[in-house]
Structure formats: structure tokens, C-alpha cells
């Protein structure tokens, strides 16, 4: 029996006269890799922003594990188990790779101002644990040897992987990846599908993935939602979506 972990119902977001996301409804099941595709400007990133509370819907609702989180603030939603990466990478540029990943463990730690400053045994233990955890995550994305390098000095592909490590530090239930392959070299791209699968298994995640590389999405995702001009035009498994006339129309129209 599949369990719905994330659901949007009739969600709409207007920017002035533009309807970036238009009455979209779908449900993501626990454990699946859910693809989100569509031409440029279709509203994919806006949908991620809605799900993470970074923008608020003009109408519609957002549910996480059955709970209405429509009006929650981003840090509350993050604490409930949704982590993301950004299409235009948003690392803490002046912080080291290690610090980036340490910061993201905030909600799972509890040291207050004074215990942190005085360095109580509990705070010191927590600090050590946070550091080990961060190193472990960096190791997973092959950046452990550069843990002390400042984030903005990493090449593009490494920044993408560092951002994934930072998102994982949040110990999320749902991981939202916004074009993780963008800016990666062909080598890194080829390994990306395997990497996402590996991470998903290891952390028992549900993954929602925005990606322009259609063959990759078809090969990786269990189900795919297709957006066009803010509207959901198709939803189903890769074979269904690929055969959908509306999808073909949207993509051919986009290219022609």
C-alpha cells in the first residue's frame, strides 16, 4: 500500500499577471523517485519554492505526511523533513565545505548560546558528532579531502555535490533536486543517476527531481509529472508520459 508523503492540491502561484504555477495537484509516494519536467519557464522551480515555503501559494494547499503545511515558514518545513538543492547553487560561499554541511544539522542539534560558548560536555560531544557526521557526508560525495576548502572555490560539479551533502545533513524524508546535472561535466553526469539511486537507498529518501535531460529522467524516475506554462499536462510512469500526445506537443512546440 503506497503511502503519500507529499501532496499539493490545486496549488497556484501568480507573479503579477503571470501564472507561474496554475492549479497543480499531485501526490508523491514514499520511496519513489518522482520526476518533474517541462520546458523552460514551465514553473518547475516555482513549484519547488512553493513546496519548501520560500514562496507562498496564491491558492491551493500543501501537505506533508498528511499534515497541512501550506502556511508554514521555510525553516519549519525544512525541520519537518524536506531538503532541497537550488538550480542556481546557493552554498554558503565563504564557509568551508565542512562548515556548510555542519550548518545544515542545525535542526537536529540543540546546543544553546551559553552551552555552546562555555563548551559544556554535552555541547562538545554534540559539536564532535556534528563534525563527524559532516565529514562522513563529505566522504560520500567524494569531497572529504577538501573539507577545509571554501565552498566558492570548488568547481561547479563539486558545488552541486556539496549542495546535495548539505541537504542530506538535514536528514530529510524528501529530497528535492533542482537540475542537479546542470553544469556537471559529461563524466559527472554519467554517474549522476547511479549516485541519486545510491543516496536514495542509503538514506531511505523520497526524491523529487527536476531535470532537462529526458533520457536520464525516463531511466531514473518511477513516475513523472510534466508541467507546461504552469499547468500539469501529464502524470504517470515514463512509458505513459512518453506516449502522451500533450507532452509530445509541448516538447515539439518548444523546439519548433
Amino acid at each position, binding site marked *: 500500500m503506497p503511502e503519500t508523503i507529499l501532496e499539493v492540491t490545486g496549488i497556484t502561484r501568480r507573479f503579477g499577471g503571470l501564472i507561474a504555477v496554475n492549479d497543480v495537484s499531485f501526490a508523491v509516494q514514499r520511496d519513489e523517485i518522482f520526476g518533474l519536467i517541462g520546458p523552460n519557464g514551465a514553473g518547475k522551480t516555482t513549484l519547488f519554492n512553493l513546496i*519548501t515555503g520560500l514562496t507562498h501559494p496564491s491558492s491551493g494547499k500543501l501537505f506533508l505526511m498528511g499534515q497541512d503545511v501550506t502556511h508554514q515558514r521555510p525553516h519549519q518545513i525544512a525541520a519537518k523533513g524536506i531538503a532541497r538543492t537550488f538550480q542556481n547553487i546557493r*552554498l554558503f560561499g565563504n564557509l568551508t565545505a565542512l562548515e556548510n554541511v555542519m550548518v545544515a544539522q542545525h535542526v537536529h542539534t540543540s546546543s544553546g548560546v551559553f552551552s555552546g560558548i562555555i563548551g559544556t560536555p554535552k555541547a562538545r560531544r554534540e559539536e564532535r558528532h556534528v563534525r563527524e557526521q559532516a565529514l562522513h557526508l563529505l566522504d560520500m560525495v567524494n569531497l572529504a579531502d577538501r573539507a577545509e576548502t571554501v565552498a566558492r572555490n570548488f568547481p561547479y560539479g563539486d558545488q552541486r555535490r556539496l549542495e546535495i551533502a548539505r541537504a542530506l545533513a538535514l536528514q530529510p524524508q524528501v529530497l528535492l533536486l533542482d537540475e542537479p546535472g546542470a553544469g556537471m561535466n559529461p563524466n559527472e553526469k554519467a554517474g549522476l543517476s547511479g549516485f541519486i539511486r545510491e543516496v536514495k537507498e542509503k538514506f531511505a529518501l523520497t526524491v523529487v527531481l527536476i531535470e532537462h535531460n529526458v533520457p536520464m529522467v525516463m531511466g531514473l524516475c518511477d513516475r513523472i509529472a510534466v508541467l507546461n506554462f504552469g499547468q500539469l499536462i501529464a502524470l504517470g510512469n515514463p512509458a505513459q508520459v512518453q506516449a502522451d500526445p500533450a507532452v509530445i506537443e509541448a516538447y515539439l512546440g518548444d523546439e519548433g
Partner: protein
Amino acid sequence: MDQFITTYGFLIIMMMLQAVLALSLYLPLMAGQLSLATPGFFAIGGYVAAVLSTQKFLPAPGTTFPEPLQSFVTWLATVFPLTPTGQGFPIGLVLVEMVIGGLLCGLVAILIGLPALRLRGIYLALATIAFVEVLRVVSLNLPITGGAIGIFGIPQPFPTDATKFSYIVIALPFLLLCMAYVYRLERSRVGRAFIALREDELAATAMGINPTYHKVLAFAMGAVMAGMAGAMTAHVLNTWNARQGTFDASILILAYVIIGGSRTFLGPVVGALLLTALPEVLRQVAGIDGLPDFLAAFLRDGRLVIYGFLIAFGVLSFPQGLLTPELLKRKKKASAPLPPTGGG
């Protein structure tokens, strides 16, 4: 040495207090908030000390404090043996005033920070300047703050020390404590949350960091430090009025942080020490024998011009400030693996 202290004792105390004020501005900046409210809290702290010490804590000559204050003072005197009870105002009570002034400022900061910290960047800076101005006007018009005249005759813990250098027993530990506080904070969970907000607020919130809570917290921490510094300064200056803690001070304190460096706690401290000492250094240089008269005169009288020029030069040539975390790290690395070299 005596000569040195007579000449520079007061300056050294002022340098330390200014360094604390620089840290007070640095704290909200750590969380990405450009607040210029520090002089306002400094003023509040000063008034707290002035009012308490002249009206509440001071017994009539030849009498003792009313109980339970007297027992408390006696106890303080045993904890701080330096307290020259009898001849001077108890140091312990100065510390008590600092704590009360600091806490009051922290409280005010939470009250004004909750609405004000919704503003961003330059708008927050403007709002905090407005706060400083409002406080100044209010203090000019309240009876308890002594109106335009202010409060005179703030009792002295070191009545016989005209140089005020004796305050070092409070000022130095105070500065060191504030520095240690911020140093440790930068390496703790809460401090990292501040820095994440400064680096990218949106990404930080998406990583579960509550922006409002941490901004207000950083703002309040800065306010506490400024309030404590104000309380101590009131004793050092012996008088307190509405000219303490004005808009000029906001800009000066901002200059400490910009020149010193705004991404490590050492930056503001070094910036404050240097800029506070600078006018005195210039005056000394002007006094060197054999200097052409026009140059000496310029160094003496054109101090503000030189000051402004150095600030502009500093900002242009060190846009990150004199000290950056990268520089400090490189220093550490460079000095660590050096093997001891033989000979000399």
C-alpha cells in the same frame, strides 16, 4: 611607565571600550544585519549607571547603604577585593550596573528588534539611526536623565586616579570576556546559524534556520555589550548626557568594523584599537622635533582630514578589512609546520 600612563592611561581605557562597541556592531552583522543602534544602547547603559549610582546606590556621606544593599556590597567587596569601600564607589556596584544596563538593553533590543529586523540592508541601518536619534531627543527631555545638562558627579571607584587608568581592572577583563564570547560563538551552533544567514538567508532558512529568532538574538547580544560598555563609560567620564551615543558614533563604530574586517571578531577589535589611537598617534608624530612647521601643524590640526583619508584609503585598498578569516588561517598554516631552524 608612570609618565606613559599619565599620558595614555585614559586613551587605553577608551580604546578598550571602543573595541567592545565594535564587537557590539559586529554581532548583528554576523547574522547579516547592518544595525547602527550600538550608540543608542551605549547611551541607555550609561544612563542606567548614572541614575543608579547617583540616586540609588550612593549612601549619604558617613552612612551606610540601606539593607539589603549594604550586605550585598560587603559581600561584593569580599569577591572583588579591589573594591575600595570607604574611599571610593564599590567596583562591585559598577559591575552590577553594567549587568543591569546590559540586561535592560537586551530587553529593549528584543522589543525593537522584532519589528525592525524585518527591514533589510540600508533600511535597517536607517531605522536604527532613527532609534539612536529618538533616544537622544527623549533623554534631552526626561527629568530622570537630567535633560540637556545630563547627570553630573557620577561616583568614582578610583577617586584618586586622575588618569582613570585604574579602570583597567574592569575594562581589560571586560574586553577579553567579550572577545572570548564572540570567538567561541563563531565556532558554535548558534554562531554558525548567524553566519549562514549572513552568507545566504534564503538558503539558510531552507536548511532549517529560523531567521527571525537568530537575527533578534544577534541584535540583542550586541545591545547587551553596548549597554555594559555604556555603564562603565559613565563612571570613567564622571558625567553622562545626550551627547554620548549619537549618530556620529554610529558611523565611527561602523568604520572600526569596515576597516578592521567584518568577517572575523578580531577585525572589529583591531579596527577600534587602531582608529581610537590614531588621533593621539598623529598628535605625537606632530610633536617630533625637526618636523617642518607646516607639516606639524597639519598633523595637529588636520587630524580629521587625515582620519577621513585613511578610512577612504583603507576601504579602497582592503575592501574586506585588514583582517579576514582567510588571512588568519593562512597565518596559522604558515607558522605551524615551520621546523625549528638551527643557528641564529
